[in-house]
């Protein structure tokens, strides 16, 4: 499917905060209570619409475990947005946010849109981190904040789309250089479609010759 922009996201945060579940909820609209530990980096994609434009979100779901940290770091660079996730029922995941943010600042594009997400908001009874604390942290570091529940799908859509809007706004403001793919943004193929069509016909060889000119 044609898209106007492709945004690359990365989801980071401590192990077990629900990164993979957030992604599954966003891409497949389902919740898997039992999820294997993510090993390495997994991958998901979904189309959204912002401002009447089709935008493809390509999302890297990273492993939260410390041992995969080096692998994960290599993914920062090509991401336009990041969802920094902690678990509202586990304070230590909140405490580690600073470390994650440090990694972001170090390895990622400085313009990367980062959204702070307090996940598992359905488990209000077991809450350890107050919403105000999350808000305060976000304010302090210039992040967007949201509490979500991958289980009930509350705010999940908003989190992903909100980040996309932020990136989109940055493009409109000229903050992002959309021609540098290392920023994690790609302009859709339909933009320069007319120029890329013809060479196929001429270089495609005997197999593609016949079909080359017909559209």
């Amino acid at each position, binding site marked *: 499917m044609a898209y106007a922009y492709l945004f690359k996201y990365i989801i980071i945060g401590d192990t077990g905060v629900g990164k993979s579940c957030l992604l599954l909820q966003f891409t497949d609209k389902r919740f898997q209570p039992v999820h294997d530990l993510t090993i390495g980096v997994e991958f998901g994609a979904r189309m959204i619409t912002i401002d009447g434009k089709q935008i493809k979100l390509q999302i890297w779901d990273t492993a939260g475990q410390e041992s995969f940290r080096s692998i994960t770091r290599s993914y920062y660079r090509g991401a336009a947005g990041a969802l920094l996730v902690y678990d509202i029922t586990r304070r230590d995941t909140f405490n580690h946010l600073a470390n994650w943010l440090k990694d972001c600042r170090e390895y990622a594009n400085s313009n990367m849109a980062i959204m702070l997400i307090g996940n598992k908001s359905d488990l209000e009874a077991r809450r350890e981190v107050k919403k105000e604390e999350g808000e305060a942290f976000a304010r302090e570091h210039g992040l967007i904040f949201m509490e979500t529940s991958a289980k009930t799908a509350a705010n999940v859509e908003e989190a992903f789309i909100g980040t996309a809007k932020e990136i989109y706004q940055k493009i409109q403001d000229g903050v992002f250089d959309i021609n540098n793919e290392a920023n994690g943004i790609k302009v859709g193929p339909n933009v320069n479609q007319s120029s890329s069509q013809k060479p*196929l016909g001429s270089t495609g060889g005997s197999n593609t010759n016949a079909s080359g000119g017909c559209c």
Partner: protein
Amino acid sequence: MVSIKQRRFNFFDEITIKDPQEPKKNFDSLKNLNIKFCQSGRDLIILGTDEGSIVTLDKHMGLNTFQLFDNEMTCLSQFKNDNIIIAGGHDSSNQKIPLIKILRLDKMDEPNFRPLTISLNNAISKITALAVHDGNNSVCVGLSSGDVLFYKCDILKYKNEKPRILYTGSSPITGISFKNLGRGMFVFVSTEYLIITITFGNREKDEKIAVLADDGVKPRCWCMTDKGELVAARKDAVYVYEHDGVGPCYPFEGDKISVHWFKGKLVIAAKEIQNKSKAPMPTATIDSTTVSIYDVENKYVGFSRSFTNVLNIVCEWSSVYVLAGKGEQIIQLTEKDTQSKLQILFKKNHYQMAIDLAQSSQYDREGVIDIIRQYADHLYSKGDFDKAMSQYIKTIPFLEPSYIIRRFLDSQRIVNLTEYLQELHKQKLANEDHTTLLLNCYTKLKDEQRLNSFLVEGNVEFDVDTGIKVLRQSGFYKQALNLCKKHSKHEDYLKIQLENLKDYGESLNYIQNLDDQSAVLNLKKYGKLLMANIPEKTVEFLKNIYSVQKFVADPTDFLHIFLMHSELLIEFLEFIQKKQINSKIISNTLLELYLKRVAETGTKNKKNQKLLIEDAMNENILSSNSSLSIQEKYALEFLMSNDTSYDMSLALTLCQLHQFKAGLLYLYEKNAMYQRILQYHMDNNDHISILDTCKRYGIHDPNLWIQSLQYFSKRDGYNLKDFIMQILTNIEKFNLLTPLMVIKILSQNNTLTIDTVKEYLLNRMKKEEHEIKENQDTLNRYLKSIMEMKTHIDHLKTEPIIFQANKCESCGDELNFPSIHCLCNHSFHAECFENHSVDGACPTCAVENSNFLNHIKLNEESKKTLHDGFHKQLERSIDTFEVIADYFGKGLFNKTLIVPESLP
């Protein structure tokens, strides 16, 4: 080297290939060849040696060798669609000039066959990578200098075309691969430090070079997946690149030797990372390599084992061949069949994986379901009911529901059971029992929200009756009501509303909204309850029914519901009557109700009662009813109204029962039961009334007087003189009793004085005296005339008769002859006589005589019937004596007949 987090199984069978000639010996023909490159395809394993020879192996380990280069081979690649290999290397003739040689494998055995050779004259470096596009008309050559050359021609028909430089890098090219993308084509080019993509445009200048990753890949440590992704195996992990960027990554540590794509799995050969802090390895010469096979889709390691001195790995004939022990050993790794894999997974309780595996290997649905069931059973036995249920749900509709339901009947697992039943219903597979159970679950869980959504959801089918029953039993009335409403179960609706909720107003509203037929039906059934609680409204509603339609139902059918509400029943019945629906039962009931009411209030004011009776006697009941209670007035009015059709005898009974005197008297009067009226007053010792009664009805029934006389005669100690005297007057008037009898009756009373009867007796005696006198006179007169007649007869017998008449009796003229004289002293002209006389009798006396004769004759004739006539007359007559006397005079009692003497 494999990350500990990944699941590991042994899904591959390991076989060491034996020498086909000597089955006991391992196949070791490759041991002395310095094998560097491996390719496979078209039923052959193609090996390239460092020295430049090509070795092919067929399935039966048949060996074939061809010396392609006589010095060195630096790279080996293969055409995708043809059995052709393309290789880079040097010939000893000129070691400086890199050569590309293209060899048709099927022509390898031909004695004079020469491979096609292209020499890269102006290059000084080695050829390190080669890629041929599917269409055979593009070839990319990677050089150790970092240049990528591009031949845009059919390489098989090479005619000295010059390549152009596509890319100039700084480090040796480690891999090149073509990929089609939509309508375009591009190549992945990798060095040890960089991976780039080169997208071809329609002109040279449209070519775009993009850096895909700023980390490269070693030679042989990359491969292409089925989907055309580039797999790059680095020290820390295996990364997958798509054309536009990095994709997922799989962490595998170790120095990778090679990586291969084998039917959706990655085959990774890596040297273990030596822990440097440890003591130096005792056997440094042993080169240990781990071969792992990783299932990308299902995320498990399907095989992992260390081999020594691994030369290379090649995939062909659905197996992975590991060239180990420097070529002394070839180990064939064959994937186990799905069944065996599943067995392994079952043993380790990796059911989820087994399911994924079964699904990805195209297991039939029932097979998968069976695995799911095993998984669920396993979870169940572990006590993880939530998960077990989520698996059981997946077995719908293959697995028999009862199997599952039975396991979850325990009340602690009701949540799971609910889930399952819900799913059953969603898939329209539930039967009646399931519905019952589900509703029971909901109610037990008090999960009203889900219950509601279940009931509201239109697409869920279930037995409504059961549903209502269950809901009602468990107290979810609201839901039950909605259900009833939805399915028009009026009766159930009302039952719940009335018996459980006791919301009578709502019930009535509901009935009102029903069609007439069902409204009436339900009202009959539940009216009593409604009446007991909201009587006014109920009556109002009943009236409404009848005001709209007259003949909806027999009003009497509703009578029972008015039990204990007689006031309202009256109201209702009056209404009905106004509507002209007349029925005896209604009238009777209404009457009964009136009387009851009268009886209730009447006991309080007995005084009024008396007045009332008097009024009733005066027929002024309605005008002067100030003394009547309203209820009595009503009742009486009702009795008197003409359009009521109550049953008379019943009405009488009722009046008597309720001692409603006014009514009773009215009814007596209406039915001419004067005796009863009299008796009534007598019972009440109401003397005046007795007398009044006699006065009023004495004309109709004189016996009343006698009775009242008898009554009074028995009353002692009262001043009854006036009454008795009045009665006697009347007795006298009607001549009812002989004075003797009167005396006899009155003599029973001890207190009556003769004074009372004096006047009566005097009157009677005077009268009788007078009568006697009269009779005497008559007697005398009769005797006298008898005497006269006797003398007349004597005279006729003995003396002559002189006719002295001179006028004719008939015409009055002068008598003249001839004339006729009769003995009765009548004379006629003979002419006149003849004209008038019949049978020669005197015409003047003839009429009288013949009458007399006729009378006698008649008497004689009617002798036989005389008896009856006499009795009849006797009965009818007031003065019987006169009749008897009369008959006596006529000779009825004579034994012999007096025959009168006939006239001459």
